């Protein structure tokens, strides 16, 4: 059974309507989402997170229907283009934020957070204040924070667009390895074809609230529809 199942999802935001008939994401897999501005990418993420109410349909994560749950109970971690670290906290406190919310003891929390910092290769930053780290480091802290909470699904909204090219490549590899290793699922929204080509098993192409393609990156590159190819190439 797939880790994430979406069936007949409909979301309305003003005059705009998003429709996702069917979507499955397996454990360890990353789904990419592309589309021009106004295609419905953000609406899709916001509906998954519960920031927007769904009109109809079903969202299942790990066999549990989450469509009617409040955001904090959905078990979906979120990461944005900007890391949005909690600036009053240290790096390790940021990583352990979700664990603290779950009521995990301080010692266990610190141990787990340290493990994640090691995986992100930023173990030496643990005592630094959030605002004392560089942009690339902050993005790693944000990723560690989203992974450490242990939720089955991770949503990444343009996660690398604020990071410089060399760091970007490292981060892509890190995300891919971590998702595979932890057997979680992830949805990555990006404008950058290289991000999705390297990360995603499948890429969903949205246009005016509809899915116009759901293919592997290789298939999309050679897709017969010029419009779809142009979206990927842009």
């Amino acid at each position: 059974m797939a880790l994430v199942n979406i069936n007949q999802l409909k979301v309305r935001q003003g005059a705009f309507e998003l429709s996702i008939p069917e979507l499955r994401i397996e454990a360890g897999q990353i789904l990419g989402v592309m589309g021009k501005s106004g295609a419905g990418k953000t609406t899709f993420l916001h509906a998954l997170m519960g920031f927007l109410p769904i009109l109809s349909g079903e969202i299942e994560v790990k066999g549990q229907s989450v469509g009617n749950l409040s955001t904090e109970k959905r078990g979906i971690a979120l990461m944005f283009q900007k890391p949005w670290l909690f600036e009053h906290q240290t790096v390790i406190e940021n990583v352990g934020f979700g664990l603290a919310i779950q009521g995990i003891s301080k010692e266990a929390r610190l141990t787990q957070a340290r493990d994640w910092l090691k995986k992100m290769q930023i173990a030496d930053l643990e005592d630094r204040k959030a605002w004392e780290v560089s942009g690339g480091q902050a993005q790693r802290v944000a990723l560690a924070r989203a992974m450490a909470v242990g939720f089955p699904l991770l949503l990444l909204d343009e996660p690398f667009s604020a990071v410089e090219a060399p760091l970007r490549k490292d981060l892509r590899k890190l995300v891919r390895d971590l998702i595979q290793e932890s057997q979680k699922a992830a949805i990555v929204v990006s404008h950058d074809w290289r991000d999705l080509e390297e990360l995603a098993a499948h890429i969903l192409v949205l246009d005016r609230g509809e899915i116009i393609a759901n293919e592997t990156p290789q298939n999309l590159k050679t897709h017969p529809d010029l419009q779809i190819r142009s979206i990927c190439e842009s």
Partner: protein
Amino acid sequence: MNWILTLPILVFMVSFFVLPIGNLFFLTSSGVAENIFQDPYFNHVLRFTYLQAAYSAFLSVGFGFVAAFLIKEWRILGGNLLWRLGLLFSSLPSIVVALGLLGSWGPSIGFGWTGILIGHLFLNFGIPMRLIGVALQDRNRTPELLANSLGMNKRRVFFEITLPQLKSSLMASWILSFLYSSTSLFIVMFLGGGPRFTTLEVLLYEAVKLNLNTPKAIQIASLQALIGGLLFLCYYRMQKRRVQEGQQPRVNLFLSEKRWVRVSVSLVFWVITISMLGIPLIFILKDAAWDWSSNFTSSLLQATVSSLKIGFCVVVLGNCILYPFLHYIYREKGNLLRSGSVWLVILPQFFSGAVVAFALSVFYPSLRGNDEWGILGVVLTQTLFAVPLMYFALNEGFERMAQERFWIAQSLGANRWQRFFHVELPSMRRPLLLSMLIGFGFSLGEVVSLLLFAPAHLQTLSLTLFQAMSRYRFQEAHAATGVLLVMIIVLFLIMGSVEEKDGSGQY
């Protein structure tokens, strides 16, 4: 049910501001008030009040404009210091400024017009300087550069393109300076020098405190309140326009290329600033040190403790009513209520302290001079005036708080309360501290509410200062001023360091 969070401030404002002020208008229209418009002396005072306020406002805006221009465009030496000092001057209690000007210039200041204008300039120039400075900084410079490249000379660029962009900030700052000058009490009382130079505020004080003529006081207070309300409406319109002004490139067309010109202008400006504004400040501290006597120590210590206690109550009450309201409009209702609700919070600033305190004492007579309730009257009046000031600090904190950080916390499983305690409150620590310091600073120097409500046994620093000045006990006045000034400067320095440390928003 979250709208309950707006109740504390609504109840507070309605009970202690809207109803008492409304009651004044009701009493005036129902014939309780004395018809004073037939009194020629009153008409003279009325004319003088607004004439001196208009001149004071022109002077403050003129000086503030030059200062803002030199700081933001010419980047004169010590410009940043002057930018900060403007705020310090504006936050000094007017009674301290009156004493400082008397101490430094003595009778040569010239009582009457000169004293009043210099006093108001001292107190008010910081407001136009900062308002115009921000507008200068944020204006759209592209049309200026385009016009200059097409052959328009700098003088024409300034008058035809730059100045129109500053119009709303110039008008807004004139309105504020006019308002503060028309409602200032102690500058006129101590530097006016007689009945020819009396204003409505002094007349109101005399009617309430000395002549005990309540019908006359009601008439004066209603008139003051009406004009305050009208000025508020004008200011609100100006502010709305100012926010829409653009911002763009950073090329400076008006900066003089000759270094000697910049240095000379800086020096001239600093000489004027130091002699007009700096010397009085130094004299206050000098007199305080020289006139200090051990006789004052215990009474001033007691007055300081009372001031601190009242300030603490004002800050706690202010935050208790203001914070839930701002939390509601920013965190629960998004932008929906923001623009419309600001007026409610900042409205009291447009009414004079004497008018509000008097209105409160008429509506709640048991607050006045009562040993048990008098302190409550003081705290309520001071809170009404501290809240608009505290609002700006808290509002800025809420403005800076990114919604995304709350979404992240929510996605990590944090519920409403956890988001409040783990995300919102820690981010609001500095704005909260800043708002407390501002409220505290205001409370320290406030006198009017104490004159109306304070029980006989209560002595605060500002009240001690007023009583000493009224009885010509200048040694004691200098000592009280010294303590008051040192406390305000310390608060100001802490505020500066709190603002400087605030480097949030990076990630």
